[in-house]
C-alpha cells in the first residue's frame, strides 16, 4: 500500500460505509425462501441420482459384493464398487510420508461405520435406494479400535497393514531450552485431557451434480464445496486429469458449512466417476443419516500438557504430548488440525521454552477434517485447563495467573517461541476492560451469594488468541525440514478479487470466497462503495466460484476466517487500482491533476472546485465506449484483478518455526455457571466474551459470528459428541442422539470489543468467526470445575457425568426386589 492510498483509506473510511451495520443484501432472498442452494438449481434432463451403500461394520474385510440384482433392478443405470473406482482413479494424496492410500470408497476392507461400499445410480433416488437394498456384501469382521491410546499401542488391531502401525505421523519439536526450564522450575503442573469428537452440522448437507464429457475428457462438477481450493489439485490428480479438465463450480448459496463442506471432496471424486460410468450427469444429495455418520468430524485428541512454573505463577516452559485421532483415513488436508495452531500453541502467553511431541493415529472412526475452530478447541482446552490448575495448585487467583503470563503490548508484533508473529493487540487492556465492563465483581458476588445458599456455582476464565488467514505452508510442519526441502517449500495465502465496470458504468465484484450465509456480498459492497465513492446498493457482488472462469488460487474458499482480513482487503486493493486509473482519465476530462480528483457521492470531482465534476458512471463507462481516448499507458479501465498474499506468511523454517496464520485476534472470556443439584444440568448464568478482531467491518455481522460460534461451542461443551461404542458402532446417528443446542438452550452472551487494527491486512481486520469455538468450551469447563471442585473434567459435561459427583456413591439396594415393576 502506498502512502497516498493510506490517506485515501482514512478519508474514505472515516465517513464511509465500512464499520456500519447496514442491512444484508443476502437476506431478502434467504428469508423469503428464494435462496439458490444446490438442490434448488435443477438439473439437465436425463440427470441420474445416486445413493451410497455404506458399511455397517467398523472394521471388516469385504469378501464378496454381489451387485447383480441391483444392476438389473428397475431404473438402475449403474452400480459401482471400490474395484470400479480404483480402475479409473488414483489414491487421494496423503499429507504424511507413511505409505498410506486414501480412497473415497472402501477397497477390499471397510474401516468405519458409514464408509461407502457401493454407489447405485438410477433414474431417481427412490429407485436407487430400492436397489441398494438388493446388494449383498459378505463381510469378515475384524477387531476394531476406537480409542486413540489403544490404537497407538503395538498390539492394536491394524487399520492399514501397509503401514506397520496406526501411528502414521510423528514429530517432535523443541524451542528454547525447555529441559533447563523444567529443571529449574519451582513447580510443575500437569493436565491430561481427552477432547471429544464433534461437528458443526450445517443445515444443508453435501450436494453434488457431476458430469463427464467423454469427448474432451473433462469433469464438470457443481458442488457446495467451501474450499480450500488446494483440494482442487487433489481431486484432479485422483481423477487422473489435468487441472484444466476438472471444472468446479459452486452454487450461489450454501446452507452453512463451518468447515464441514471441505470434506465433500472425496464424494466429488466418487460422483464424477459415477457420471463417467453411467454416461450421464449424476446428482447426489447427502441425507442427514449419512451426514452425521460419515461426512466428517473434528479430531478427538488426547493431550498431556505439563508446565514449568515459577513461584508467582509465571509459566516458564510447556511440554505437550498430543495424540491426534484422524479416524480411519488420513484425508487432505489432515493432519492440518494438529498443525494449524502450531505457531500459537502458547496461546496469549509469553512462554519461550516449548517441547512438543505430536503423533497422528488412525482409528475405526469417520475421517476428520475442517470444523469451525479447527485445532483451536483441541489446543486451548488443555492450555486453559492448565492455567486454572496452576492457580489452584499454587493458591493464586486464576485471573492473576493469566495477567502475569500475557504477551505484553510493548512486544507487539511478537514472535512466539513456535514461530507465529502475533500482529497486534493489547491483551492486558482487553482483559481489564472485560473485567470492568463485563461485571466480574458482580459475578463474584453472585457466586458468593449462591454458595452461601448451598448452591453449586462456579466461575471460569479463558484467554486465547484466535488465528486467521492460514499460511498454506503450515501443514508442511508435519514433515521434517529435510522432507520439506525435497517437496518444495510452501507458503502464503494468495487471495483474489476482481472488480469490473460495465458499459453503463456500474460496478461488479467477484471473489472466490464461497460464503455459506455470512454476508460476504454485503461487506464487499460496503468496501467497494467506500473505495469508489458509491453507495453499497450500487455495487453488485458475485461470490460463487467457477474454476474455469474466475480468478482463484489454492487458498481460495471460505475457511480460517479469512474473508474480512484477506478477501475483503484484496477487493479493496482491486478497487483502488481501478480508481487510480480512472482518476487519471478524470483528470484529463476535468482538466485538473490526478491528485486533485475525489470520488464521492457517485460523482468524480476536482477537490479544488467540486462543481467541476462528472458522474462516476460516465467515467466508469468510458473504458467501453471510448477506449481510444484513454492515455495509452493506462491500459484498460474495465476490469481489475488483484492477487494478494501477505509477505509475513513465510514457509516453515529449518528450525521448525511456523507462522501458521497471518492475524491473531484476542479473546478473553469469563462465565458463571450453576449446577442443578438434582439433575446435574449446567445453567449458564452469565457469559462475557471480549474480542479484539482488529478493525470491525460490519458490527452486526461480527456479533453474529460471535454468537454463532458461541452457540456451537456451548454444544461442544455440554451436549454434542460423535460417540462410538467400543466395537466401533456409531451411537450418534440422528439428531435425537447428537444433540445440537436450540435457541432454548443458548443464552445470549455479553459481547465486548476492543479494536487493534492488524498492521498486516489492507483493512486492519482480523478473523472473528472461530474464536468462541476455541475459548468457550474450556471457559465453561473451568466454571464447572470451579463449581464442583473437580480436578479433571472432559467434555461434553453431561448431566449424568456431573450428577455422579453431586449424588455421591449410590447406596446398595435397601429392600429385596419385588420382581419386575
Amino acid at each position: 500500500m502506498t502512502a497516498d492510498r493510506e490517506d485515501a483509506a482514512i478519508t474514505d473510511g472515516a465517513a464511509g460505509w465500512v464499520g456500519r451495520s447496514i442491512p444484508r443484501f443476502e437476506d431478502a432472498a434467504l428469508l423469503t425462501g428464494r435462496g439458490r442452494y444446490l438442490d434448488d438449481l435443477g438439473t439437465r434432463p436425463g440427470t441420474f441420482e445416486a445413493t451410497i451403500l455404506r458399511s455397517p461394520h467398523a472394521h471388516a474385510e469385504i469378501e464378496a459384493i454381489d451387485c447383480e440384482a441391483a444392476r438389473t433392478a428397475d431404473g438402475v443405470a449403474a452400480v459401482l464398487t471400490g474395484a470400479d473406482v480404483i480402475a479409473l482413479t488414483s489414491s487421494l494424496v496423503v499429507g504424511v510420508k507413511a505409505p498410506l492410500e486414501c480412497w473415497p470408497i472402501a477397497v477390499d476392507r471397510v474401516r468405519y461405520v458409514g464408509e461407502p461400499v457401493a454407489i447405485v445410480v438410477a433414474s431417481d433416488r427412490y429407485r436407487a435406494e430400492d436397489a441398494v437394498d438388493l446388494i449383498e456384501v459378505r463381510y469378515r469382521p475384524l477387531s476394531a479400535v476406537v480409542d486413540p491410546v489403544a490404537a497407538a499401542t503395538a498390539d492394536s488391531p491394524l487399520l492399514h497393514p501397509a503401514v506397520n502401525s496406526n501411528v502414521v505421523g510423528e514429530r517432535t519439536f523443541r524451542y528454547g531450552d525447555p529441559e533447563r526450564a523444567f529443571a529449574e522450575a519451582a513447580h510443575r503442573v500437569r493436565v491430561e485431557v481427552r477432547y471429544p469428537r464433534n461437528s458443526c452440522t450445517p443445515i444443508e448437507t453435501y450436494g453434488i451434480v457431476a458430469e463427464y464429457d467423454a469427448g474432451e475428457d473433462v469433469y464438470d462438477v457443481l458442488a457446495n464445496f467451501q474450499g480450500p481450493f488446494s483440494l482442487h489439485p487433489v481431486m484432479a490428480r485422483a481423477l487422473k486429469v489435468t487441472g484444466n479438465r476438472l471444472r468446479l463450480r459452486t452454487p450461489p448459496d450454501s446452507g452453512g458449512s463451518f468447515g464441514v463442506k471441505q470434506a465433500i471432496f472425496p464424494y466429488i471424486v466418487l460422483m464424477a466417476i459415477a457420471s463417467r460410468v453411467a454416461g450421464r450427469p449424476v446428482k447426489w444429495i447427502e441425507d442427514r443419516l449419512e451426514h452425521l455418520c460419515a461426512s466428517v468430524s473434528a479430531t478427538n485428541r488426547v493431550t498431556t500438557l505439563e508446565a514449568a512454573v515459577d513461584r508467582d505463577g509465571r509459566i516458564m516452559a510447556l511440554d505437550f504430548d498430543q495424540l491426534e485421532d484422524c479416524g480411519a483415513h488420513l484425508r487432505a488436508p489432515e493432519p492440518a488440525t494438529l498443525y494449524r495452531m502450531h505457531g500459537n500453541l502458547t496461546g496469549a502467553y509469553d512462554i519461550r521454552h516449548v517441547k512438543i511431541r505430536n503423533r497422528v493415529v488412525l482409528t475405526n472412526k469417520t475421517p476428520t477434517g475442517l470444523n469451525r475452530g479447527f485445532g483451536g478447541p483441541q489446543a486451548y482446552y488443555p492450555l486453559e485447563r492448565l492455567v486454572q490448575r496452576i492457580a489452584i495448585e499454587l493458591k493464586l487467583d486464576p485471573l492473576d495467573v493469566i495477567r502475569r503470563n500475557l504477551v505484553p503490548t510493548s512486544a507487539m508484533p511478537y514472535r512466539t517461541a513456535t514461530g507465529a508473529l502475533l500482529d497486534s493487540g493489547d491483551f492486558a487492556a482487553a482483559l481489564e476492560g472485560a473485567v470492568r465492563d463485563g461485571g466480574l465483581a458482580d459475578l463474584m458476588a453472585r457466586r458468593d451469594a449462591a454458595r452461601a445458599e448451598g448452591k453449586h456455582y462456579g466461575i471460569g476464565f479463558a484467554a486465547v488468541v484466535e488465528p486467521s488467514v492460514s499460511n498454506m505452508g503450515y501443514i508442511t510442519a508435519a514433515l521434517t525440514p529435510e522432507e520439506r526441502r525435497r517437496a518444495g517449500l510452501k507458503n502464503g495465502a494468495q487471495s483474489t478479487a476482481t472488480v469490473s465496470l460495465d458499459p453503463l458504468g456500474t460496478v461488479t465484484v467477484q471473489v472466490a470466497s464461497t460464503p455459506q450465509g455470512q454476508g460476504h456480498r454485503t461487506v464487499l459492497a460496503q468496501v467497494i462503495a467506500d473505495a469508489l465513492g458509491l453507495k453499497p446498493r450500487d455495487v453488485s457482488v458475485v461470490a460463487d466460484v467457477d474454476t474455469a472462469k474466475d480468478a482463484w488460487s489454492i487458498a481460495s474458499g471460505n475457511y480460517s476466517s479469512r474473508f474480512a482480513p484477506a478477501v475483503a482487503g484484496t477487493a479493496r486493493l482491486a478497487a483502488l487500482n481501478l480508481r487510480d486509473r480512472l482518476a487519471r482519465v478524470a483528470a484529463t476530462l476535468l482538466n485538473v491533476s490526478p491528485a486533485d480528483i475525489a470520488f464521492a457521492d457517485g460523482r468524480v470531482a476536482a477537490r479544488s472546485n467540486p462543481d467541476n465534476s462528472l458522474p462516476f458512471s460516465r467515467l466508469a463507462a468510458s473504458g467501453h465506449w471510448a477506449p481510444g481516448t484513454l492515455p495509452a499507458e493506462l491500459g484498460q479501465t474495465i476490469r481489475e484483478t488483484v492477487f494478494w498474499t501477505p509477505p509475513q506468511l513465510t514457509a516453515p523454517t529449518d528450525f521448525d518455526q511456523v507462522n501458521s496464520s497471518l492475524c491473531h485476534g484476542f479473546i478473553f472470556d469469563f462465565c458463571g455457571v450453576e449446577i442443578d443439584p438434582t439433575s446435574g444440568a449446567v445453567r449458564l448464568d452469565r457469559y462475557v466474551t471480549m474480542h479484539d478482531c482488529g478493525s470491525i467491518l460490519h458490527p452486526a455481522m461480527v456479533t453474529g459470528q460471535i454468537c454463532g460460534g458461541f452457540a456451537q461451542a456451548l454444544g461442544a461443551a455440554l451436549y454434542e459428541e460423535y460417540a462410538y461404542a467400543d466395537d466401533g458402532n456409531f451411537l450418534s446417528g440422528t439428531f435425537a442422539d447428537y444433540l445440537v443446542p436450540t435457541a432454548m438452550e443458548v443464552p445470549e452472551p455479553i459481547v465486548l470489543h476492543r479494536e487493534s487494527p492488524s498492521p498486516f491486512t489492507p483493512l486492519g481486520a482480523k478473523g472473528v468467526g472461530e474464536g468462541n469455538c476455541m475459548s468457550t468450551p474450556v471457559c465453561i469447563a473451568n466454571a464447572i470445575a470451579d463449581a464442583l471442585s473437580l480436578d479433571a473434567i472432559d467434555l461434553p459435561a453431561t448431566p449424568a457425568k456431573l450428577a455422579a459427583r453431586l449424588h455421591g456413591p449410590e447406596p446398595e439396594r435397601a429392600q429385596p426386589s419385588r420382581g419386575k415393576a
Partner: protein
Amino acid sequence: MKPAAFDYVRAESLEEVLDVLANEGTDARVLAGGQTLIPMLSMRMARPSVVIDIMRLPGLDRIEGAEGTIRVGAAVRQRHVEQYANLVSSQPLLAAALPWVGHAQTRHRGTVCGSVAHADPSAELPLVLITLKGEIELRSRRGSRRVAAESFFIGIMSTDCGVDEMIEAVRFPIARAGVGYAFREIGRRHGDFAIVACAATVDARTARLAIGGVADRPTVRDLPLPGDPGLDDALDAFAWDLEARDDLHATAEYRRQLVRRLGRQTLEEAARCRD
C-alpha cells in the same frame, strides 16, 4: 432416506380403515400426525405395504367430555388438547405434561392417540394416561373394546392393540377434588426424549407415582404419602425394580438417582397442589 414403495389410502370412513386393517394385517400402518411414522418410513425402519391416512375422517378430530373423562379422538393434534378450554382445571396433569411433548411445532402435527399407539417408553402422554387410570378405545371390524391404560402398554413400542385394530380415542379422567397432580421431567434439552419423567397424584390417603424413560414401558406404583418415613425405601425399591439401563445420554445409576430424587419432588409437589 426415501421410503420403500407403499400404497396410500386416504380413508373416507372408519369402515374403510377397519377393512384395510382387517385385510392387510401387519402390512398396514395407520398414519395420523406422522411425527414418528414418516421418519420411520424414510429410514426404512417401517416398510408397510399400505399406509392409511385417517386425518380426513369425519368425527375423529373431536375433544369431548364423556363419562367423567376427556375423550380425545384419533385425529386430534396434541396442540389442540393443549389449547382445550379449561384444561388446567379439568385435568392439570395433562396440562402440565403437554408442553414437554416435543416442541410446539411438532405438537401442531402430532396426535395424542398417535403417541399412545407408538408407546415410546419415555413418552409423556402414555405416562399421564396410566397415572390417571385412563382408557384406550380400540376399534376393529370385530367390534369395539376399552382397555385400561395400565394393561395397554406391554413393552418398548409394544401395546395391546391388535393388528386389525386402531385406536379410536383415548380417555383422560378429569380432575377430582382433593387430589393434587404434578409432572416433572429431566431430559438433555427441552423437547428431547425424557431421561426420567415423573407424573404423580396425591390425595388424602394415597400417593401414586408413574415413571417414564426408565423401564421398557411407563410404570406406575402406589407409594407412601410424602412425609411417611417409608417413602425413601419405597422409592429406592421402585428405582431398582425399573431395571434401568445405560444409554448414550445417561447411565442406569443416574436414572435410579433421578427416580429417587425427582420422584420425591414430584410427589411433594402433588401433595402441595391438593385443594
